[in-house]
């Protein structure tokens, strides 16, 4: 597809990287020619220096033939203007990032009336992601397939867990639940395991299962799956606001620590039910006084990544809380992972992932058949949902007879609402949705799971 990206900041660059790796024709527009240089040097894209809201600049980037325009500059108004102009100039789909909470309440009106295909609010998306994690604190990350009927959960095998030194066949025999372990990360290496694979403590594993089964599974291995009862949020920015609002809605007690007096007053006005603490969270005493040792969830959302990392490390030492750490900018993923900071939230990845997911779904109607796509275990593994629309080379053949690619697993089949855990004799039928977990990137069609 031909895609134009306006604004090449953190999110713009992440989207550019993912979409260009998937083989789309990209043009990026930015006012700063330095970032355009970076983009064109690192990725196979065309760069245009200029104001993305200008008709001429859009024409130069090829708006007339573009399928989608994604506006992710720093300014909400500019993004909306880009989309409006693109709509008139090229009649393409448009995606805008709009982050001002003022607009957030009117988002549907803006979207409908201005004819945008999608509006993404990164802070809101990040907050949604965090609240989903706090609802189910055992997992590092949760994604859903088949309209919520199947969950993909990522969690760490704790010390002394039942699963330690247990092969996957034994797991299935002992626990008698339909849960599929689809990916394991051990020592920074990702493995798509088979039945004889033996789990160890410290492994990060991803499982696919219907929600009921996964609850059962966790119960049987003796892990608590209740949602947290209270949460401490450090830093009172926009994400904190959205998150607090959603947690309060779920009946979770929220405590926000923020060092700016004015902002504290604003928050207390916006969130009357929350406890707002005015204080500097980098001061140990403040946190101790507010009971960090007893909180069940600790979320560090300050604007400084290093600060967040330290706060989370401190919280890990002081309490047994579920820890969520926001990272904005730092890119040393591998190092950060060794700190064991609990769930990491990268607003830029979340935003990018939402947009890429939308683009994929769009492509669906044109050629590719990917319904949803998730990246798990630091983007090393992809979980994809395919819809089987027609009779192709895969339909009606027992899975054991298919010559599948290496490191690829058929995790789950959704047949008219019922979830099937596939075995060797299972056949795929037309109308099914199939969930594939693989380290092979860039699958476009269900046929791509076969060896060439």
């Amino acid at each position, binding site marked *: 597809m031909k895609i134009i990206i306006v604004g090449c900041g953190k999110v713009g660059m992440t989207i550019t990287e993912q979409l*260009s*790796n998937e083989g789309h*024709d*990209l043009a990026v527009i930015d006012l700063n020619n330095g970032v355009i240089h970076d983009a064109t040097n690192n*990725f*196979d894209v*065309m760069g245009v220096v200029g104001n993305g809201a200008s008709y001429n600049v859009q024409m130069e980037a090829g708006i007339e033939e573009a399928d989608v325009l994604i506006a992710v500059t720093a300014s909400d108004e500019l993004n909306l203007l880009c989309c409006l102009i693109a709509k008139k100039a090229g009649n393409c789909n448009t995606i805008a990032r709009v982050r001002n909470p003022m607009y957030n309440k009117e988002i549907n009106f803006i979207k409908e009336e201005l004819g945008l295909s999608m509006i993404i609010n990164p802070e809101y998306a990040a907050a949604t992601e965090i609240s989903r994690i706090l609802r189910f604190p055992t997992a590092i990350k949760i994604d859903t397939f088949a309209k919520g009927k199947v969950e993909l959960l990522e969690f760490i095998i704790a010390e002394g867990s039942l699963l330690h030194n247990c092969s996957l066949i034994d797991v299935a025999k002992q626990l008698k639940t339909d849960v599929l372990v689809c990916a394991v990360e051990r020592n920074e290496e990702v493995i798509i395991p088979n039945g004889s694979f033996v789990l160890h403590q410290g492994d990060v594993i991803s499982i696919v299962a219907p929600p009921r089964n996964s609850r059962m599974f966790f119960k049987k291995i003796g892990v608590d799956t209740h949602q947290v009862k209270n949460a401490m949020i450090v830093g009172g920015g926009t994400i904190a606001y959205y998150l607090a609002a959603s947690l309060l809605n779920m009946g979770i007690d929220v405590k926000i620590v923020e060092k700016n007096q004015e902002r504290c007053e604003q928050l207390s006005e916006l969130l009357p039910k929350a406890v707002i603490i005015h204080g500097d969270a980098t001061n140990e005493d403040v946190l101790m006084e507010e009971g960090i040792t007893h909180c069940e969830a600790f979320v560090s959302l300050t604007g400084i990544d290093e600060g967040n990392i330290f706060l989370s490390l401190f919280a890990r030492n002081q309490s047994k809380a579920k820890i969520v750490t926001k990272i904005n900018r730092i890119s040393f993923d591998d190092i950060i992972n060794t700190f064991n900071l609990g769930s990491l939230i990268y607003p830029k990845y979340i935003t990018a992932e939402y947009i890429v997911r939308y683009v994929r779904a769009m492509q669906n109607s044109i050629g590719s058949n990917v319904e949803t796509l998730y990246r798990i275990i630091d983007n090393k593994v992809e979980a994809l949902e395919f819809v089987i629309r027609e009779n192709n080379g895969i339909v009606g053949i027992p899975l054991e007879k298919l010559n599948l690619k290496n490191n690829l697993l058929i995790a789950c089949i959704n047949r008219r609402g019922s979830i099937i855990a596939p075995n060797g004799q299972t056949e795929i039928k037309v109308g099914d949705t199939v969930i594939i977990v693989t380290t092979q990137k860039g699958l476009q069609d269900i046929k791509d799971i076969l060896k060439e």
Partner: protein
Amino acid sequence: MNYSIIRYILGWVLLFESGFMAMPCVVGAIYQEKSGFSFLITALACLVVGFLLTRWKPKNMVYFAREGFVIVALSWIVMSAFGAVPFVLTGEIPNFVDAMFETISGFTTTGASILTDVEALSHASLFWRSFTHWIGGMGVLVFLLAVLPLTGGYNMHLMKAESPGPSVGKLVPKVRDTAKILYIIYFVMTIIEIIFLLFAKMPLFDALTTSFGTAGTGGFGIKNSSIGDYSVAIQVIVTVFMILFGVNFNAYYILLLGKNKKNVFKMEEVRWYLGIILVCILIIAFNIKSIFGSFGVAFQQSSFQVASIITTTGFSTADFDVWPQLSRTILVVIMFIGACAGSTGGGIKVSRVIILLKTVKQEMGYFIHPRSVKVIKMDDKAIEKDTVRSVSAFMVTYVIIFGFSMFILAFDNLDMVTNFTSIAATLNNIGPGLELVGPTGNFSVFSPLAKCVLIFDMLAGRLELYPLLLLFTPSVWKKN
């Protein structure tokens, strides 16, 4: 430094070369010449070496600008070294330095020859000589990018290092598609020229080799008199196509696929290029009118020569060395200007000359209004400071290389005009110069050392100086 990616891509270059070399084998078979076997042996050698080098795919396919430059420079050297082998094997050019000179002259689309009697060569060798022009014209790595499914944004580093011009842009978002489009335009234009030449009753073999020479703006003729003995119609066709191949290929893309075809006429570089050609043709035509008798013939001769020199092709129809000083001087000046960026021609490039002139104008402005702020523009767009800086640096590097070459050539104790124009002719990838290296002379007069310097100049000229200079920079070769 990612050595394995260098090995891998060099391997592919050799595989492609062995494919290219199959063509002269076929020619040798058709004319039943023994020299065909020399090409066959070399082609097989390329195939084996290339196969071994590409056998193991590098684990790390990531590379950066410096690897890009090194790959391009090494590819051209390795390609030329293998390309020179058949000449030695057939015994037509027994000395390896001479064979190397001839091959590099071919690949770099220079067209300077050390042969005194071209017509003595076998058809296979003649074909290979001209075919190297065609390969070198658009660049072998651009070809590789168009054909090989190398993924990632890194490929732009290769394209940048091989394509001529101050700044290399893409026509379409993907490098691979851009490379394909360029090659398609190049290929189709070559075919059209061949058809035109056939219509003008040129024999097929001559039409093929002449078209290759024109398309790559190379200039190897297959006759001792270059194009001089062919009919006027053929000369005119070659003139027109030389000028066409010297135009920035982006112009053709806009004409064929662009939405706003009028933009072609707004391309400042193309307008300057055509303007310079027209003015030079007219001045020289008036200047040489007395030699040819009528203005018509003088115009035709002058246009052929101007087109041949400014596009850095180097074909000749007349011995311009005996023309009046004014004409000779103009020809030497346009040697330096060269063709448009993004064409197959060499030289400093019209766009660089425009930017330099505008920089000079800007500098003068600073003397008059010391506080004035002025941005250099081209095609109504501001030129980045970086581009201006790199153009100035290019010019300085160019002068240094030129001066250094002059110094080494002086050891041969030939006259100044010969030395000066032979460096101008090689560094700008033209071919013939003046005096001893004029249209009737050749480069066999030089000592092996001087030939090596000229070989360096040809490569440096084709690859726009820096890739080759980087090879001699120790820090490039460090592992990290």
